[in-house]
Every structure is written in structure tokens, then in C-alpha cells.
């Protein structure tokens, strides 16, 4: 049964790839991308897209981790519920609305786009950092205290490593959403791969449209995969083992 299923799954995958290839040829994407000028243009848009994502993600990670850490300290712990509420409220706001609001308050260009992406990406990271650190059993922290660890050492050697898995999930969600939302940044004049997609839709040119849509999709899938892969190295070995044996 298991083998039949795996085989069927692989068969479907190969079929999809094959059909995808035929579709690419039929819609003229390959022709579009083999034009050196268009290829160069597409590559520069990919670069722009990645810069948008990288800058906003860097800022979002720093702030998200910061918020998560600050609101789990004893002094600010009482506000953690409030922060969590605000963050989950913020997450229900659609991405297009955030981009549009950034434009109406900050104008057009690169900076408003970065700001909108940054604000929107902070939320999952902050939420998961907060949730991850809060979920650590109190006896682990008590044990650390009993061993005479200072607060800073408890944070860096106990709390963050134990919460790392949850934080990484937040980072991954945030990154994938960010890559998708960065495609909308074109609407407020920040470029990126959205340029090919939106102009392609307006001109009804499937080749240009797909030349934008496929790299965005691949970028998102690749980012998702890479974070999952390299994230493993950041999770302490003990926690990894536990999962392997299904504890």
C-alpha cells in the first residue's frame, strides 16, 4: 500500500513537471526569457525583490525577537497578553491593505514598501517568540536558576534554544508571507517581481506574467525549504533527538 502510494505520488509529480514544461513552451515563457534583454530585466527584478525581502526581514527579525524577549521578562510579563492580542489583531489585516495604507501615509517608492513589509513581517516572529518562550516549562528555568545562572545566561542558554523551534516556524511563515507581499510592492512603486506580473496582467501577456509569477513561487518555496533545512542546525541536538523518537 505504502509503495503504491509513493509511486502514484511520484508519477503525479513527474506528470505535473511535464505538463508544466509543455505549458511554459506553449505560453512563450522560454522564448521570453531567452531574449537577453528580457532575461537581464527579469534577473534585476529578482535582485530587487530579494533586496526588499532581505532588508525588511532583517529589521523584522530584530524587532520581533526584541518584542518577544522584552514581554517575557518578569517586569513586562503582565502586558504579554495585551501584546499577543494586538499582534493577532494585526495579523487579520490583509496584506494589500497594509501596503495601501503605507502608500497613503508615506507616499510611493522603496521606503514605504520596506516599511509595510517590515511591519507585516514582525507579527508572526513576535508572536512565536512570545509563545515559544512562554511555553517553556517552569521547572527548566527553575533548574537553571538553581544552578546559579544569571538572567542573561538563562535567556541565551535556556530560553532561546528551547524556544528556537517555535521561533523558526514564525520566521518561516513570516518570510513566505513577506516574499508574497513583496510582489505587491510594485503597486506602490518599489519594483520587484510584481512588476512583471501586474504589467503582464494588464497587457494580457501570459509569457511576461509567468516570467514574474514563477520566480516568485520558486523563491517562496525555496525560502521555505531552506529555512526548514538550515533551521535544524539552530535547534539544540537534545530537542532534535526527542522529536526523532516521537517523544
Amino acid at each position, binding site marked *: 500500500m505504502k509503495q503504491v502510494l509513493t509511486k502514484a505520488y511520484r508519477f503525479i509529480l513527474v506528470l505535473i513537471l511535464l505538463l508544466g514544461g509543455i505549458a511554459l513552451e506553449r505560453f512563450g515563457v522560454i522564448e521570453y526569457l531567452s531574449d537577453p534583454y528580457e532575461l537581464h530585466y527579469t534577473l534585476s527584478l529578482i535582485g530587487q525583490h530579494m533586496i526588499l525581502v532581505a532588508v525588511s526581514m532583517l529589521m523584522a527579525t530584530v524587532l520581533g525577537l526584541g518584542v518577544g524577549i522584552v514581554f517575557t521578562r518578569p517586569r513586562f510579563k503582565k502586558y504579554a497578553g495585551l501584546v499577543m492580542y494586538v499582534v493577532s489583531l494585526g495579523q487579520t489585516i490583509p496584506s494589500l491593505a497594509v501596503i495601501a495604507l503605507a502608500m497613503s501615509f508615506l507616499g510611493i517608492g522603496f521606503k514605504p514598501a520596506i516599511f509595510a513589509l517590515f511591519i507585516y513581517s514582525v507579527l508572526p516572529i513576535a508572536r512565536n517568540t512570545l509563545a515559544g518562550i512562554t511555553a517553556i516549562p517552569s521547572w527548566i528555568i527553575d533548574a537553571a536558576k538553581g544552578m546559579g545562572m544569571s538572567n542573561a545566561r538563562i535567556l541565551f542558554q535556556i530560553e532561546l534554544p528551547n524556544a528556537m523551534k517555535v521561533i523558526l516556524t514564525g520566521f518561516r511563515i513570516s518570510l513566505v508571507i513577506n516574499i*508574497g507581499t513583496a510582489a505587491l510592492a510594485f503597486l506602490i512603486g518599489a519594483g520587484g517581481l510584481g512588476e512583471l506580473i501586474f504589467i503582464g496582467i494588464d497587457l494580457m501577456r501570459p509569457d511576461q506574467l509567468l516570467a514574474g509569477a514563477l520566480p516568485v513561487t520558486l523563491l517562496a518555496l525555496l525560502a521555505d525549504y531552506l529555512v526548514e533545512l538550515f533551521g535544524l542546525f539552530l535547534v539544540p541536538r537534545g530537542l532534535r533527538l526527542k522529536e526523532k523518537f516521537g517523544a
Partner: protein
Amino acid sequence: MHVIEYITTHKELCWRLTLEHIWIVALALFLSIIIGVPIGIAITRNEQAAKKVINTANILMTIPSIALFGILLPILSLINQGLGKVPAVIALVLYSQLPIIRNTYTAITNVPPELVEAGRGLGMNNWKRLKEIEIPLAVPVIIAGLRTAAVMSIGIAAIAAYIGAGGLGVLIQQGIARVYEEMIIAGALFVSLLAIFVDGGFALLERLLTPKGIRIGRELSR
């Protein structure tokens, strides 16, 4: 505030677009329940299949929404439906599969085995156990999945305005195109409020549909 002025003078437009938005999301949600819940229940019988189905849904979810519209457009224009509500609803249904399938699956696999055993002891057959024990206990978690799906769909439906699906995204799209600030803010405001209201509504539904026994048990354990 100019925004309030804009809304009062364009009351009918805002109202019509809001209804259109709700209509797209509701239709998509309805279709994704019909597709997703049975799949979620079916895969509880086979762990391997479950893994594959959930992974596939996960990959679908990773595809950025505007890119998915872009990919669907040339494919659907073969049957002359490249623009408009059809690709929007298809995309929304695809995106909603992950939260719905995953929540249905986890909800049903998390039903305590002793309850299912008790059902078997009472002489219930497979189908009856599913109907009377597993599904009622799973409903709150399934509703939680619907809640995620609905909120996400509202956001994605806003982007679908760019492929001509209508809805509140039109205000944002037109507003950006005309650099008409009040229009943008009105659109963003309505979409956000709609998402927040739907989120709250589903949270309430989730609580109402939790079987009484579980609710009391939860309150006691608190």
C-alpha cells in the same frame, strides 16, 4: 476627516463592494468545506496518504497569491475564464485547503481512543462512530480551521481585484491608480474591518459549537 466624507458620499458603492467581497469569500469557503472536510476525514484512515496530502496543501499555501493568480490566468483563459471571479474563487479554494484539511485531520486523530472504543463497545459501526463521536468532538477544531481560512481568504480576495474579481480590493486598486488617498484608506479600512469581524464571528461560533461537556471540563481544569 475626508475619509468619512468619502464613505458617506459613496455609501452605495462601498456597500455593494462589501457584499461582493463577502459573496466571493463565502462561495469559496463553502466549496472548500465540501472538498476539504471529506479529504481531512478520509486521510485519517491512512497515515502515509495524510502526510502526502498535507504536504501538498502546504506547498500550495506557500505559493504567493498574486503569483497563483498569474499562473491560473493563462491556464483558465484556455476556457475563457482567465479574469474575473472564477480564478479568484479557485485560488481561494486551493488556499483554504491547508487549514481545513489539517484541522479536520488533527481534530479527528486527537479524539481520545477510549471514546472511540466505548462507541465500539456500544455496538456502533464505523460510520456511526464517525457521525456521533468523532465529528461532534472535532467540530470546534474544524471551525478554527475555517476561521483561519476565512480571514486569509478575505485578504487574498482583496488582491483578486487586480484580476477583475471585484470586491473591496477595487477601492484600493482604483485609489492607488488615481492617487486618491481617501479611497485607498476607505478600502483598506473596510477590508480590515471585515477580516476582524469575521475572525470574531468565527471565534464565537467556535465557542458555541464546542460540546457542553468539553466546555465544562475546560472551565474546571482552568
